[in-house]
């Protein structure tokens, strides 16, 4: 059926597309600028000569950072915090979600309610800090990993996913003499790859980007993750070059942003669809 396109409708399309183009510029400009500034001449960035495209291209800021040992220490810290956190989160979350997906399991409701209540109320920053301190976790990798080990949202997402798996497969395995543990590892987990990848990626990106737990739980410089180093340079104004040397002050900041964000920007195109999926699985259950 051919529709008559009214003037109003065409005007709407025109403004909508114009708006989208403005939106693209607004969203992309800061990222483009950060990149351009990071490879430009410091004086031109500071004086405002660089507005979009790089000028007097130089990699000096990156060179300065690469020879900074603190950067590599913090990079390594971030990598190991992220790896350990992601692995342990996946293990603990799936191990807890699997029994919770069994509707006939006695006590299931109580445990679900216990988990759900933490979404509404929490002990707060100080009591949690005191527990971590009491357990002697301060200045260890465990202070970063354990307090945020299980996210109740991910637990519910995974439980919902497990509930949707066909019961018959598990029953067949049980008849063949598989225990619950074996069924989980051999049958349920391989079938749950999409949800595992999604939650793994969510956890990894969150941990890569997080700074607050490191801020309150870590005092040892050797333990600082990337985000803390980034904060010290960008916001607290710590000079990476050492006292008094301001020759690359501005461009160093932008280069540091790129170095810290690069891994995420590199994998973003590949993982983007998992994120969208994951948000929707979580959303369906509310």
């Amino acid at each position, binding site marked *: 059926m051919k529709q008559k396109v009214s003037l109003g409708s065409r005007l*709407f399309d025109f403004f909508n597309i114009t708006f989208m183009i403005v939106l693209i510029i607004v969203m992309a400009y800061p990222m483009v600028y*950060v990149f351009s500034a990071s490879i430009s001449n410091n004086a031109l960035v500071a004086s405002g000569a660089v507005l979009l495209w790089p000028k007097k291209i130089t990699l000096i800021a990156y060179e300065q950072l690469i020879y900074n040992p603190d950067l590599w220490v913090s990079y390594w810290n971030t990598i190991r915090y992220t790896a350990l956190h992601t692995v342990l989160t996946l293990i603990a979350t799936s191990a807890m979600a699997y*029994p919770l997906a069994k509707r006939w399991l006695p006590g299931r409701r109580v445990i679900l309610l216990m988990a759900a209540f933490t979404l509404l109320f929490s002990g707060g920053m100080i009591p949690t800090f005191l527990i971590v301190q009491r357990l002697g976790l301060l200045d260890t990798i465990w202070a970063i990993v354990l307090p945020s080990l299980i996210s109740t949202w991910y637990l519910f997402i995974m439980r919902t996913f497990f509930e949707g798996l066909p019961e018959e497969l598990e029953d067949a395995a049980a008849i063949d003499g598989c225990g619950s543990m074996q069924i989980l590892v051999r049958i349920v987990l391989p079938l749950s790859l999409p949800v595992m990848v999604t939650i793994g990626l969510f956890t990894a990106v969150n941990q890569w980007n997080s700074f607050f737990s490191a801020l309150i739980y870590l005092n040892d410089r050797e333990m600082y993750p990337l985000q803390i180093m980034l904060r010290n340079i960008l916001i607290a104004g710590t000079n990476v070059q050492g006292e008094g040397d301001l020759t690359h002050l501005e461009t160093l900041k932008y280069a540091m942003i790129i170095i810290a964000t690069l891994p995420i920007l590199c994998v973003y195109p590949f993982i*983007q669809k998992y994120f*969208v999926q994951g948000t929707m699985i979580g959303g369906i259950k509310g």
Partner: protein
Amino acid sequence: MAQLSRIGYVLKKHKALYLLMLPGILYYLIFKYAPMYGIIIAFQDYSIGRGIWGSKFVGLKHFIEFFYVTPDAWKLIRNTIMLNVYDLLFHFPAPIILAVLFHELKSKWFKRFVQNISYMPHFLSTVVIAGILVTFLSPTTGVINHLLVKLFGIEPIMFLGMPEWFRTVYVGSEIWQKVGWGTILYLAAIAGIDPMLYEAAKMDGANRWQQIRHITFVGMVPVMIILFVLTLGNFMEASFEKILLIYNTMNYETSDVINTFVYRRGILDADFSFATAVGLFQSAIGFILVVAVNRIVRKYSETSLW
């Protein structure tokens, strides 16, 4: 006795399943429920040496001190509420509008392209966002001020040094970072709308605005309700980590919120009991808000959180 042996029997029968849950349950007990128990120190003069059982009980002393003695108490409460009200007013509707506009785009590849660009800021860390804000908004070297000078001839503005600019900067950057990502759930809701509804509406001569209003918008209402209740659940929290990074003594007047205060008094000054009391005041309000709103929502619509 009979009850106990029954529990014993059930535990034994499903031993493997309960063992699987054990680490998770321990996690909740240690890192979620023990801190809730730790709230007791809000009513004590807690000292690390004496511990939670040995510290002196002082009743509401810390609450009274906060409300009657702390000169900034009302400023903190006002800032917390105002930042969140502005966020709710501008940030909550933004993804709804954007989702409708995305949906109205005819070209599929263009739609996907804009969507992907708009999701990007979501993946930047809070520190990067704060760092971009601080460097971009700098009155001497920031690009925003350079642009303002070049394009409009405006004198450089010290955005982060002026209390009157803080709320705009805060809410603006929240929208910038989260609006694109926020459309995902709404777009999923729109995708779930039966295309027949649009066909029928066209037959009846509904124009595009009427279709948006009566079909697209209505289709998004359940998601809106859920997200609204959830947003209110975090109402008192704000994006505290971002505030912590971009606030400074010059803009405390509008930027200092309850959480940043709790951080300074509790973590930096180690004034544990007092900070816990202030934190408890905040989480209690948050809890009451979400329960009340959910109750109201449940009364008037089919969708609610529980």
